[in-house]
């Protein structure tokens, strides 16, 4: 089963043979159209409507006023910076932890492999809120962790672990680590051992092999997991509201607030659309940069 998940999430997708792929993809495309593209169009339409306190009879006029308001509000700027930093930090920590685990996963025996795979999959099966509350209890001022630290004499009085930027990044990293491990494990596994051995026989140290062989050859997996973790982290709502709350305000909180508390759907829609486009642009930029660094377009045969 692990193998199935690995290959399903793997980076092995290649362009080419468009027509041959289109037919089996048809059901997915239809689903995508109904449940993703149509709501997205609706979101875009709504974001272009004028803001009304009670949107019974929305003004049919198209206006960019919401977008102007989105960019004018300094609170949004602060939230955007927070979101960006949280996303980047989560990506970096996730990759730093997941890559060694992925390498270990491909080198170790079958017993350890099963163990790590199950450990990776379990958090996905656990209900998100249950998982977050677990962290909540752990990090609370008089929670398990702080009591243990105090008992050991390592800290003196309660610390504010919860409601902080590091806590938010920590929980987001935990939550998204399994995806990164599974993707990277498949990427690392796809690097033929012969190539690593060839580099070793040519005298390369492990660090140099990592830098000159492993990193470029697993770059698609790194890019894929970075994109996944970044977009999941930046768009996460539950974890920021429960762990960071008002100390680390992020964009999804504002979207939620516009949509529910303030009943200002057009503003919420405009903000959501800005977030979507930003994530898409950052993702695209990252892919292009990684591809250019490894010159992938030049040598990869499809």
């Amino acid at each position, binding site marked *: 089963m692990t193998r199935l998940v690995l290959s399903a999430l793997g980076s092995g997708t290649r362009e080419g043979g468009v027509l041959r792929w289109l037919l089996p993809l048809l059901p997915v495309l239809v689903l995508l159209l109904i449940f993703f593209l149509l709501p997205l169009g609706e979101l875009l339409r709504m974001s272009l409507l004028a803001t009304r306190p009670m949107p019974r009879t929305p003004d049919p006029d198209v206006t960019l006023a919401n977008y102007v308001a989105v960019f004018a509000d300094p609170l949004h700027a602060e939230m955007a910076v927070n979101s960006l930093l949280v996303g980047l930090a989560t990506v970096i920590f996730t990759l730093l932890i997941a890559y060694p685990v992925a390498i270990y996963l491909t080198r170790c025996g079958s017993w350890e492999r099963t163990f790590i795979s199950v450990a990776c999959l379990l958090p996905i099966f656990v209900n998100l809120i249950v998982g977050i509350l677990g962290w909540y209890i752990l990090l609370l001022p008089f929670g398990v962790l702080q009591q243990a630290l105090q008992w050991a004499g390592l800290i003196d009085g309660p610390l504010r672990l919860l409601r902080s930027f590091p806590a938010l990044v920590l929980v987001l990293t935990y939550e998204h680590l399994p995806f990164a491990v599974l993707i990277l494990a498949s990427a690392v596994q796809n690097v033929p051992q*012969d190539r690593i*051995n*060839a580099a070793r*026989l040519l005298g*390369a140290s492990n660090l140099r092999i990592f830098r000159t062989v492993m990193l*470029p050859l697993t770059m698609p997996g790194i890019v894929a997991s970075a994109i996944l973790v970044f977009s999941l982290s930046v768009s996460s709502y539950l974890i920021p509201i429960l762990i960071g709350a008002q100390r680390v305000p992020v964009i999804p909180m504002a979207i939620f607030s516009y949509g529910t508390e303030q009943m200002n759907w057009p503003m919420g829609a405009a903000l959501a659309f800005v977030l979507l486009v930003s994530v898409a642009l950052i993702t695209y930029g990252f892919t292009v940069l990684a591809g250019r660094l490894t010159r*992938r377009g030049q040598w990869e*045969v499809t």
Partner: protein
Amino acid sequence: MKSAEEGAAPGVTAPDPILRLEGLAKSFQGQRVLHGLDIAIGRGEFVTLLGPSGCGKTTTLNLVAGLLAADEGSIRLRGAVVNDVPPQRRRLGMVFQSYALFPHMTVAENIAYGLEVQRMPSRDIAHRVGAMLDLVRLPGVERKFPSQLSGGMQQRVALARALVTEPDLLLLDEPLSNLDAALRREMQQEIKRIQTALGVATLLVTHSQEEALTMSDRIAVMRGGRIERLGTPLEVWRDPRTRFVCTFLGDATVLEAVSDGTAFVAGPLHLTPASSAPAADTRRTLAFRPEHVRLDPPADAPNAALGLVREASFRGAHVACLLDCEGLAIQAVLPADPGGRLPQPGTPHRFAIPPDAVMLLDD
């Protein structure tokens, strides 16, 4: 032949060998794969490990390279035991069956890899890479990527990459098995030419007897994790000693025979070997190669008998023939007749096996 100028063929007792394996043993999951291997390779010598699939050739090569750890025995490189030296510091060149080129680097960067590791100045690197590409006859592909090259060209790049650091021992693991027959023959000669030009000792792994016979100074025929026969191609071919080596190297008719004091008797065949007069009543296994069988020999030819032609098939340069000698099946390969005449199936023919061609086997 190379070994001639070094006096006797450099066997396990070669003076100052580049590589010496003593009692090398290896198990995988409790399963013995190598049983105490002994071999020494002299400087500049070309030695081939030849054997069927699964006999432990690749394992031996990986042990020499340091990619696997030996369970027992010692590996000496340039006189020093290297069992605990990592592959990085063994200073060996190796070409893998898959070539193992770095796909994200150009040909020049691939070849330069070992020199970059040594932090050689880039001007010297460019010079050495150019010289290496000339040696493997691949000028002008510096900036191409491996995926843009044919199999044979990739093979040459892999060879250049392994040799650019001037190792004194080159390891080749079935380097030609991914090439088609014509290219394989060409690369056999190319590898041999480059190996001779650089004077680099080479350990080749193959399961193709043709490759082993044409390229090697010495051949080690392996079976089930042991070296069964070690010698020059001619020695191993003419005197294989065991039935396995004899039939692995080429076709042969193998017979069980009993000595009557002057000749070995197998059915109607009376065979006198060239070497020694056999003592009476000794049982031996005899063999001879199809190409040594003479059809319609002169009347006074030794080791002659009468056989019935069962099949005769035209193979271009020669004719393959199956003779029935009172129940014994005798394979014969005859030079093609210029007039295009084939021995007719069903006709009786006299045939003879020259005493030189009779091989005595232990098994």
